[in-house]
């Protein structure tokens, strides 16, 4: 798809344009809380990071996980529990949530990577459902009630996250760190191996790469980053509930990625923004969100599989993915 004959100067100017856009985006995010409702922005950032983490697996490794809610919601539970019951500071809670999601990812990935394609999707779905039932029954999650009134606390024991701007910039920091990590992973030699697995698994095997280990590593990283997003969301909203571990949530993150553009850096963020906005709009209109979600799924698969950002890339040659 990329133009092979692109001259070095053109490539350089494209790269410069990309950096300019990234810088503009960061400036916009820094200024955004003065124009928009901060909670709404933070929700979008949490879901955008979640979708980017999911895309690391689907877009760059070619594995469709139907169970990512387990990591997102699981980390939210771990974080909420440690912050509320153990009384740890929020950054420690978020780290524990992330680590918990990574461990969960290691276990789920260990089973799931034994099959490919459609089976992989079904296995992750089934294992995530198992985790859902665990969350329903485990005492620390409080079942249907969830963990409520999680204190936001003080970041590093110093910064009061109860203030809207403090929590906003903390979440922005987490979001940027997470996205940067994904960008680094994707553009590292490791990420290149992941892409080769996506393109042709047998060939990657024959070139001597231990495909199973690479897949598992990608799965764990994706799970951990999804956990980072989920744990941060628990601090923002001050609760962790069963909603975040349901299969509907796993479906939602797939939709965000599909709508925005599978295998692009920006696509999942755009998708997350659109889906969250849509849900907020529909929540007050009385029109069921499920129908809209399902219809967008069908339209995306039928009409534009590259997603919004993917289609824009396809229309504008010279911009590299």
């Amino acid at each position: 798809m990329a133009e092979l004959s692109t001259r070095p100067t053109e490539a350089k100017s494209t790269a410069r344009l990309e950096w300019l856009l990234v810088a503009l985006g960061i400036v916009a995010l820094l200024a955004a809380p003065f124009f928009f409702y901060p909670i709404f922005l933070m929700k979008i950032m949490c879901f955008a990071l979640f979708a980017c983490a999911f895309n690391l697996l689907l877009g760059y490794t070619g594995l469709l996980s139907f169970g990512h809610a387990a990591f997102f919601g699981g980390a939210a539970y771990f974080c909420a529990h440690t912050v509320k019951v153990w009384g740890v500071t929020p950054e420690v809670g978020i780290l524990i949530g992330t680590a918990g999601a990574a461990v969960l990812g290691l276990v789920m990935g260990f089973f799931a990577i034994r099959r490919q394609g459609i089976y992989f999707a079904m296995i992750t779905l089934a294992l995530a459902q198992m985790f859902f039932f665990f969350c329903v029954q485990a005492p620390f999650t409080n079942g249907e009630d969830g963990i409520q009134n999680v204190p936001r606390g003080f970041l590093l024991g110093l910064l009061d996250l109860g203030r809207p701007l403090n929590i906003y910039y903390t979440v922005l920091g987490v979001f940027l760190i997470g996205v940067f990590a994904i960008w680094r992973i994707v553009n590292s030699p490791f990420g290149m191996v992941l892409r080769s697995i996506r393109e042709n698994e047998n060939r990657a095997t024959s070139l001597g790469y231990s495909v199973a280990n690479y897949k598992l590593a990608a799965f764990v990283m994706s799970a951990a980053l999804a956990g980072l997003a989920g744990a941060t969301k628990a601090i923002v909203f001050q609760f962790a509930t069963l909603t975040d571990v349901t299969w509907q949530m796993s479906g939602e993150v797939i939709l965000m990625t599909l709508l925005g553009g599978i295998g692009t850096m920006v696509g999942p963020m755009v998708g997350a923004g659109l889906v969250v906005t849509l849900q907020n709009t529909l929540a007050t209109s009385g029109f069921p969100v499920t129908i809209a979600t399902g219809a967008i799924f069908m339209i995306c698969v039928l009409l534009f599989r590259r997603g919004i950002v993917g289609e824009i890339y396809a229309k504008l040659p010279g911009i590299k993915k």
Partner: protein
Amino acid sequence: MTMIFGIPVQAFLGQLLVGLINGSFYAMLSLGLAVIFGMLKIINFAHGAQYMFGAFVGFLLLQWLNIGYWPALILAPLVVGVVGMAIERTMLSRLYSLDPLYGLLFTFGLALVIEGVFRYYYGVSGQPYAAPQALAGGTNLGFMFLPNYRGWVVFSSLVICLGTWLAIEKTRLGAYLRAATENPKLVQAFGVNVPVLLTLTYGLGSALAGLAGILAAPVYQVSPLMGSDLIIVVFAVVVVGGMGSILGAIVTGYVLGLAEGLTKVFYPEASNIVIFVIMAVVLLIRPAGLFGRDA
């Protein structure tokens, strides 16, 4: 009172029967999934929604037109099958040349739409649907009391599963189906209309789900959510059985239903995850599934 493993024999057999009933539905649904997957190479995520749709067709026939259970037993699968065929013809057939994952995503969206529509009109609470007069009451088998309708469910699901298996293995149309599964291009060259065969297959698979739904309506309540949780369990069943064999899908369905029933007797807390645990164990020992061929 007689005891088995320290459990009263009545309770033991009762749970086993519940397991057998659940197993009947697992078998019918995983059979439908396997039939569709065999031909279309698509995992029909909407299978649970179509099962729920079948139950609702029965319920609505009774509500709106006062049409009872027996006609509904024919009409519900027919409606679900025809709707399925229309969806296959207009939309699903465009996805055959793509990665099978797109089929999964499309049918997932379809499931959400179907479920969302019924949820919008009927909420999440279940609607009762009475068993037909002829099957009311129960029979005392001497060692246990068998509600007639439940016996009927087990019996008819066995007939449906065996019938479908025979139709695919022993009839001419079934032979076309199997041939088209192996090599669609060649079969097309022999003058068999493969696209029509694909449409019929999806219709048949959907109709099976609808039939399971109307059978389930008097056992469980008719609720928009009845399909979505079930389909995930059925996916696990399919992973355990492997989709290579129709008979494998059927047997695995019944066995896992019984395993679930047994777990309810001995360790109730684990009853809703036991199938997933079995799936994990099978993945460790035989990743291709019990009846599966290596992909």
